[in-house]
């Protein structure tokens, strides 16, 4: 199985408290290169925790995670940063664009921490802008873009460095239905172009648009379906 991009084994995560909150109770998940997986579940099901663990933003209480062929649960903080800089792209519900900076420069920041020169980063950003069909917005300041455009810029920022996997956390959560459909179409197109994708959503309808749907409840996977 050389094309395994991400896998988790018996993944557990508890948060301290009385009693401790067990957000994940043994999750086994494998994502192969080129897959597009929607992880769906109600609020409190542990899906955000799962995304943070897969994205190496947090550490599991037990179990193991492998990203791009690397066991990450025992890496140091700066080694985890390196994994994120080189192998993972993120898309967030709140976009997290820097206001005062152009769409192009926001996208160029996607590979900022790889030590690539600014001019080269901007060229990469221009190519990513083409992929999300926003060439004509390259010089626009982030705050001048519509919500849908902002999320497409955020998607471009996630893919600009061609990471092994894109993790999207409720990417349509802040969008109206039209923009939301456009972003989902964009993500599916990118997936068809070869990008591996994990989308987290609470919306079954959104989840249903991806070829594989994993349902999470109370920290456990309750179903894992691939479209025929």
């Amino acid at each position, binding site marked *: 199985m050389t094309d395994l991009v991400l896998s988790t084994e018996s993944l557990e995560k508890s948060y301290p408290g009385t009693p401790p909150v067990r957000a994940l109770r043994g999750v086994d998940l494998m994502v192969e290169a080129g897959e597009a997986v929607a992880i769906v579940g109600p609020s409190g099901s542990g899906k955000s925790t799962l995304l*943070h663990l897969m*994205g190496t*933003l*947090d550490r599991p209480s037990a179990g193991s995670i492998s990203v791009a062929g690397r066991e990450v649960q025992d890496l140091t*903080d*700066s*080694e985890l*940063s*390196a*994994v*994120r*800089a*080189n*192998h993972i792209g*993120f898309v*967030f519900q*709140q976009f*997290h664009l*820097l*206001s*005062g*900076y152009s769409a192009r420069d926001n996208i160029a*920041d*996607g590979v*900022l*921490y*790889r*030590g690539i*020169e*600014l001019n080269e980063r901007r060229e990469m950003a221009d190519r990513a802008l083409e992929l999300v069909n926003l060439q004509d917005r390259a010089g626009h300041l982030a705050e001048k873009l519509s919500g849908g455009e902002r999320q497409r810029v955020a998607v471009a920022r996630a893919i600009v460095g061609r990471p092994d996997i894109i993790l999207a956390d409720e990417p349509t959560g802040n969008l109206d239905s039209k923009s939301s459909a456009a972003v989902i179409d964009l993500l599916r197109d990118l997936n068809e172009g070869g990008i591996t994708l994990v989308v987290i959503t609470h919306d079954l309808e959104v989840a249903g648009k991806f070829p594989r749907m994993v349902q999470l409840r109370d920290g456990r996977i309750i179903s894992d379906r691939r479209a025929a």
Partner: protein
Amino acid sequence: MNDRSLLRPSDAMRVALVGLKTRTTRALLSALGITIGIASMVAVLGLSESSKSDLIASLDRLGTNLLVVQAGGGIGFGSGTLVETAEAMVSRIGPVESVAAVGSVEANVFRTDLVPTTRSGGLSVKVASPTLLDTLGGSMAEGRFLDDSGSALPVVVVGSVAADRLGIAGFDGSAMLWVEDRWFGVLGVMDSLELAGDLDRSVLMTEATATTIFGYQGIPESLYIRSQPEFIDSVIEVLPATADPENPDQVQVARPTDALEARAAAEGAFTALFLGLGLVALLVGGVGVANVMVISVLERRGEIGLRRALGATRRHVAIQFLGEALILATIGGIAGVALGVGVTAAYSALRGWTTLVPAIAIWGGLGASLLIGAIAGLYPARRAARMAPTEALRSA
């Protein structure tokens, strides 16, 4: 594959400027505190240096080798006069280059004979040796000084303040003054005498004139003495006994430039005080920057979370916020040095001083602002670096 998270130095600089670019007004206001602190320190050092250089220039110009001998008047000692032979005796002291005697005449001076005698204007009439002007290093604004022709003509030379009060500032060679009971011609008007301010409020006549007209006895009140600088201490030692051998302990010897030197020293003491106040202003400025940075870190949790997600290490995040504090402090410091130099130049121009800002003030000012910036940035930077990425993203 060896993965690394790497931030180029040029990018670190760009990233450190994000806060300044997105919250310009607030950033500049916080830098203003540092500007004020640095400006006050630079201005204090610059002004003290410029005024001191002015005093030193005055001392150089006036010479520190002038001595004044006066009789110590007071209860039981009679009038404050020296002995008649004092001038001649003192001039025989080897290292003495020149001596000038000044005595008094009981007379009042008026612009015309119509002025009531009670309105004497606080001016005095004095008798002076022809050597007085050179001994004091003084100069004439108009006309000429008393000469040693021995003539008893009714003429006077007028001090600068006296000339103002008598209304003969625009002297054209033909002015007359009413001295006691007769008209006197005005020979000339002196420039202000920095080392003998009392003579500025006097009109001066020769001994011959005073003797002939007012019955002056030839007993001086004070002597002005120029000595060779290297022997000045020896001259001071022998002066009392030479000027009045019978009552040497009644003779006071003074060095007028001592007052200027004391002024320079006193200004030095104030410099330390104001420098301390400047330092307090700088510290308050630093606290302001730290405060704004802490708020900025809290407001920018989302950005911190995003940067961690993009692969920034804790160190990169710390560098970003520390860099931002350093940039703010540098801007504040440069503006402060410029403002301090500007204030020094403006005030020096106003006072006619040469503008002098010591290099230590400029480099020290920039160094101090960097140091303050580093200290102010340290805590916010640590706080930003320690923020867990998930928490930063969640709370945004």
